[in-house]
C-alpha cells in the first residue's frame, strides 16, 4: 500500500492576507517534508466558495508549486471538476499536459463533478447535468492528450478540429481517476477503466465489498483512456504521536474541527431535488466517518489517529480491504500546529511506513502511463 497526503487548504477567519499565505506556506512545507520521508503522492481538491473549509480554488497552481518543491512525489488533482461552467475541457487538457511536463511526468488526473450547492449554484451549473458532463469530459480528455488534432461535436460542448497543445510528458497520458462518493460511481469508474478515488469510507466491510465489485467489473471494462488504471485509493485523517494521549487528543480535535466545518456547507442533495445526487457526497460522508463510533480512545475505527501502533492497525485494515493507497488529510482550520503536523508525518514515516512495501519502489510501478 502507498501513502499520500491530501489537501483541502482550510483557512480560519479572519482572512487577512498573512493568514492565507501562512496556510499555503505550511502546506508546501508539509509537502516538501512528505516527499523526503517517502510519501508517494500529494493530492488536492478543487473547491470554490467553501468558506474556511477549503480555499483551494486553483489546485493547478498549488500542485505546480508542489511539483517544484518535490523530487519524487506524484501530484494529483483530487479532483478537477468536469462541469463546463467550472472548467472548459480544452483548458483542462492544456493545463494538465503543462503540469505533467513541468512535473516531469508526475501528474495524476482525478475527475469529478462537485457536490455542493455552494459551488454548483455559484457557477450556475445544473445539478441534473453534472454526471453527464463528467462522462463526456473523461471520454474526450485522453483523445485531446493523445491525438495530434482533435475535434468534437457533443452534448455539452463541441469544437472544430484543432491541435490541443502541449501534450503530456507521460506517454500515452497521465493516469486517470474518478472521485467515488455517490453510490454506484465505483461501477462508473470500473466500466471506464478509471482508478477509484474512493473518498467515502463507509465501514470496512462496505469498502471491501465495493473494491471487489470494482475489480470484478474493471476486468471487462471499456477504457476511456489508452490504458486501465485499476487502483483504489481512499482518504483518511492522519495525526500520530509517540505519546498516546497526545495522539488521541490532538487527532480528535482535528476530526472534530473538520466535522464542524464541513457540516456547515450546503450539499447539492439538501438544496435541490434531483436524482443526480442520491447521496450527500464527500463532505457528509467524511463527517459521518469522523463522527462514527469510537474505540476506547474515542477515535472512530479505521481513522489513522493516535499512537503509531493504532495508526498501523488502521492502515493494515484498509490494506486488507484491497485499498492500494491512503491519502491523508493533515489539518483543518490550522487546529494542529505546524510543528505537530510535521512531527506526525515523521512519526508515521518512522513507525508505520516500514510495515508496508517500500513506497519509493512503488512509484515506478504505479498506474500505467509508460513512465
Amino acid at each position, binding site marked *: 500500500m502507498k501513502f499520500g497526503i491530501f489537501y483541502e487548504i482550510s483557512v*480560519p*477567519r479572519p482572512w487577512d492576507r498573512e493568514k492565507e499565505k501562512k496556510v499555503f506556506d505550511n502546506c508546501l512545507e508539509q509537502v516538501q517534508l512528505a516527499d523526503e520521508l517517502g510519501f508517494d503522492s500529494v493530492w488536492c481538491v478543487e473547491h470554490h*466558495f*467553501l*468558506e*474556511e473549509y477549503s480555499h483551494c480554488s486553483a489546485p493547478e497552481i498549488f500542485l505546480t508549486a508542489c511539483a517544484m518543491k518535490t523530487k519524487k512525489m506524484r501530484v494529483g488533482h483530487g479532483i478537477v471538476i468536469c462541469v463546463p461552467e467550472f472548467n472548459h475541457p480544452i483548458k483542462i487538457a492544456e493545463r494538465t499536459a503543462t503540469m505533467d511536463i513541468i512535473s516531469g511526468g508526475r501528474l495524476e488526473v482525478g475527475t469529478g463533478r462537485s457536490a455542493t*450547492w*455552494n459551488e454548483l*449554484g455559484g457557477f450556475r451549473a445544473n445539478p441534473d447535468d453534472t454526471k453527464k458532463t463528467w462522462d463526456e469530459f473523461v471520454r474526450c480528455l485522453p483523445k485531446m492528450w493523445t491525438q495530434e488534432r482533435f475535434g468534437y461535436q457533443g452534448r455539452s460542448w463541441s469544437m472544430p478540429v484543432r491541435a490541443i497543445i502541449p501534450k503530456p510528458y507521460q506517454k500515452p497520458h497521465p493516469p486517470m481517476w474518478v472521485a467515488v462518493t455517490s453510490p454506484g460511481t465505483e461501477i462508473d469508474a470500473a466500466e471506464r477503466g478509471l482508478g477509484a478515488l474512493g473518498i467515502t469510507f463507509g465501514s470496512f466491510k462496505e469498502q471491501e465489498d465495493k473494491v471487489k465489485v470494482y475489480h470484478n467489473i474493471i476486468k471487462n471494462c471499456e477504457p476511456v483512456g489508452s490504458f486501465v488504471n485499476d487502483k483504489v485509493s481512499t482518504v483518511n485523517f492522519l495525526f500520530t504521536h509517540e505519546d498516546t494521549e497526545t495522539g488521541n487528543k490532538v487527532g480528535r480535535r482535528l476530526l472534530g474541527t473538520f*466535522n*464542524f*466545518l*464541513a*457540516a*456547515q*456547507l*450546503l450539499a447539492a*442533495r*439538501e*438544496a*435541490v*431535488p*434531483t*436524482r443526480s445526487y*442520491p447521496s450527500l457526497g464527500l463532505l457528509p460522508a467524511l*463527517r459521518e466517518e469522523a*463522527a462514527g463510533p469510537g474505540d476506547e480512545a474515542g477515535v472512530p475505527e479505521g481513522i489513522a489517529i493516535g499512537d503509531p501502533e493504532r495508526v498501523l492497525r488502521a492502515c493494515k485494515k484498509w490494506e486488507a480491504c484491497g485499498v492500494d493507497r491512503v491519502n491523508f488529510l493533515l489539518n483543518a*482550520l490550522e487546529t494542529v500546529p505546524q510543528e505537530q503536523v510535521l512531527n506526525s508525518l515523521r512519526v508515521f514515516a518512522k513507525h508505520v511506513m516500514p510495515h508496508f512495501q517500500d513506497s519509493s519502489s512503488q512509484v515506478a510501478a504505479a498506474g500505467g502511463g509508460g513512465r
Partner: protein
Amino acid sequence: MPRSGRMVVEPFAAKTAREIHGFKTEAWTLKGAQILNILYEIDNDTVEDLVPVTMRPAIPAYAMFNVTRYPESPVGPFTIAEVRIGSRAGVRPRGFVLRSYVSSEAAASELAKRWGYPTVAGQVYLRAFHDRVVANITTAEGRKALDMEMIDREFISGNDVQYVSSMHLARNKEDGKLVVVQVDPAWTFHKAERGRPHIISLDSQSWGAGDMLRADYPISASFTTCDVTLSKIRYYCDPAQDAFRGTTAVAA
C-alpha cells in the same frame, strides 16, 4: 472561526414564541399532506441574527419557505406556512422556524401547546394549477407576508426530495424559560414534483425578522403529497448555548 447564530432571543421570542405545555406530546400522523417547499438564498450579512446561538447558519445563507396543507388532523384540516432558516444544530442540517402562520385557530393552539410551534393565525392559501403551484399568506392584520409559486411542474421521485427537521423557540410553561425545540417529522411520499421557484413578495416584518429577511437568489422548489408524522419531541436545547453543550434529550 466558523459562523454561528447570534440572535438576541428575548425580543424575538416576545414577538413570536408560544408556550409549550411540557415535552411529552404523542405523535400525530397526518395523511395526504401537500407540501410546497421553496428554497432561496437569503442575505448573508444578516443571517447570523436570525438564528440563536444554538445553531449555525448554513453557508451560503438560505431559507426554506414552506406551506403545508393537512386535509385531516385531530383538530380538523389546516394549512401552515413557515419560514425556516437553513442551519446546523451541531453537525445536523436543520431549519430554524421564524414563525408559523396557521389557517385554523384550533390547530395553531394545539401545535403550540404540543410542539411549541411559534404559531399565529393567518390566511394561508395553497393551490395547484397545471402550470404552477401557488401559495400566499396574509396576516390577521391584512399584511401580505409571502407570495410565492413553483412554475413548470415536473414529476420526480419522492426519493429525490430531502426535507430537513426543524427547530424553533418556545417558552416552557413549567418554568417560563425559553427553549429551542426540535421537531423531526417522518415523511412517506406518494407523489413528488419539482419546478422553478419564484418568490413574488416577502414581507420580512411579518416573520418577526425586522428588515433582515430578503430572498436573494432562487435555489429550488418541490411540491409533494405525503403522509407526515409529527413525532414525539426527542430533544430541546438551551438557546444560549451551542447544541453540542446545551441539548437535553427527552426521556421516552
